[in-house]
């Protein structure tokens, strides 16, 4: 993966290119998980960069499908989706949807209807564990998404079956669609909740690729399912989007697009 540029700045540029001309909202959701995606596709997850459907690679699921532009951005860098797909994102008759769907090679699990992707990831991890497979299952969820009861059903199942091949990554950007998670349904303390459900928890700066990589290495040696609580900022990397929840929905004007481009190093 050494010769493939999966740096956070490149991923952010791709996201801007996809969302340009006012085509897409969900920018805040995508920017908060850029470093998580960068770390996963740069080596934390064992993938074959030449083959998106390689049957032996690790699985990467995006349960919070709203951040899918970050995934598409990485898939573009890997060559799994085309420049044309980036340039024409969400235009009439194009393949890529605004939420993750698994008909796209490299998108392993459909997400976006919240509370679906993680339970499917748990099923995959359970099946792989039964076969003593070395494949690992990573699944990114939102800290708002974990309001969903279906997520907790599957957390119970994963904990009971000690799915050591499963890592949940919580993009803990503190916001959900309508406001602060702590004001709507306060899920803290996340680490203690997950530990009580049989998970090993790791907390890190979700915008530090180094910290994320250390956490990913630790999850590999865990004998339990793992959760990485990645403390992130919604809209990270673009000053006028950071912590401004309107960027869950808002689409960029040309002026905002130009400003954003200048801010990405």
């Amino acid at each position, binding site marked *: 993966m050494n010769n493939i540029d999966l740096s956070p700045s490149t991923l952010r540029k791709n996201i801007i290119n996809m969302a340009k001309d006012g085509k897409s909202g969900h920018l805040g959701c995508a920017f908060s998980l850029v470093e998580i995606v960068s770390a996963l596709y740069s080596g934390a997850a064992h993938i074959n960069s030449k083959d998106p459907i390689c049957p032996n690679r690790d699985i990467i699921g995006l349960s919070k499908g709203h951040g899918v532009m970050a995934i598409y951005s990485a898939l573009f860098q890997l060559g799994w989706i085309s420049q044309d797909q980036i340039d024409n994102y969400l235009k009439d008759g194009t393949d890529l949807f605004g939420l993750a769907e698994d008909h796209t090679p490299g998108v392993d699990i459909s997400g976006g209807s919240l509370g679906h992707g993680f339970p499917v990831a748990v*099923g995959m991890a359970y099946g792989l564990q039964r076969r003593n497979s070395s494949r690992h299952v990573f699944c990114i969820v939102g800290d708002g998404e974990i309001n969903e009861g279906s997520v907790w059903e599957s957390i119970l199942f994963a904990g009971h079956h000690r799915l050591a091949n499963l890592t949940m990554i919580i993009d803990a950007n503190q916001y959900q669609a309508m406001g602060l998670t702590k004001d709507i349904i306060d899920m803290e303390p996340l680490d203690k909740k997950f530990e009580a459900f049989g998970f090993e928890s790791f907390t890190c700066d979700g915008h530090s690729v180094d910290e994320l990589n250390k956490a990913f290495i630790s999850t590999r040696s865990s004998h339990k399912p793992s959760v990485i609580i990645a403390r992130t900022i919604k809209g990270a990397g673009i000053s006028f989007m950071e912590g401004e929840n309107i960027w869950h929905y808002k689409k960029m004007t040309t002026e905002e697009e130009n400003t954003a481009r200048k801010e990405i190093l």
Partner: protein
Amino acid sequence: MRTVLSNLISESAKNDENFLLLTGDHGYALFDEIRKTSPEKFVNVGIMEQALISTAAGLSKVGYKPLCYGLASFVPIRVLEQIKFDLCLSNNPVKIIGDGAGLIYTNLGNSHYCGEDMSVLSPLEGIEIYSPGDPEEMRICYKEFISSDVPAYLRVGKCDNPKFNEVPLTSTKPYFTNKTNSNEICLVSTGAMLGIANQFSKEFNVSHLSIMKIKTIDKEALDHLKSFKHIIFFEEHVRKGGLTSAVTDLFIDSNTTLPKVTSYSLKNSFVSKAGSHQYALSEHGLATDQLRIKLKCIIDAK
């Protein structure tokens, strides 16, 4: 019929290394055999229907052939979105059994009443729906249900009906249990109404067609029925989205003129009183005596 189903599931477990039976803590006696002969293929996920379906979707994605079992009130009703999004969208060929469909559990109250399971599944792309009425229909339906490469639902209603078909069926296609020379009336049934509809066909000397696969319904149903002047449906399910809809849609989709249609099906109403299965049917006008009187009126008027 439950014994047949239990044995069929156990056979799948023995013969297919990728088969897994998943239940949400339901079906105790039904799984005695598989728990004895293939315990490693039996997974009780716990009382969590959403996880039941989604876990099965994940298992399917890594090569397993999961069969999910639940009571129809919960699987598919509670988990419709999981079926739509986790199974149908990705064409994960997970199999689902909804047991206790119809009025069979209504002595427990409305929580276990399920007259709309086929209705909610019918519009979903890709899923197939089976509704067998006796042990032989169960056998032939299960064979196709379990081996297809699409998501599929097996509706299990009242199960203690006697074996009706003595000769093995060769397919799930619609078939006449009684065929007269008259083209005036044809009774058409699915599922648990098989026996009573056949009995009426003999009492009143009219034809009877059994349809066990509701989706995708075989077009031979149209060929069988289009020459009749009056079709009378029997189903322990609401009219919309079940047998009546499936057959009348066939006529509409093929631009064929519909004969006169009468549908004896469940009302869109909850059960109001406790009682036996026949009592519950009577609240919907479907008890045997009620149906006999209604049929007699129709036939006497001809």
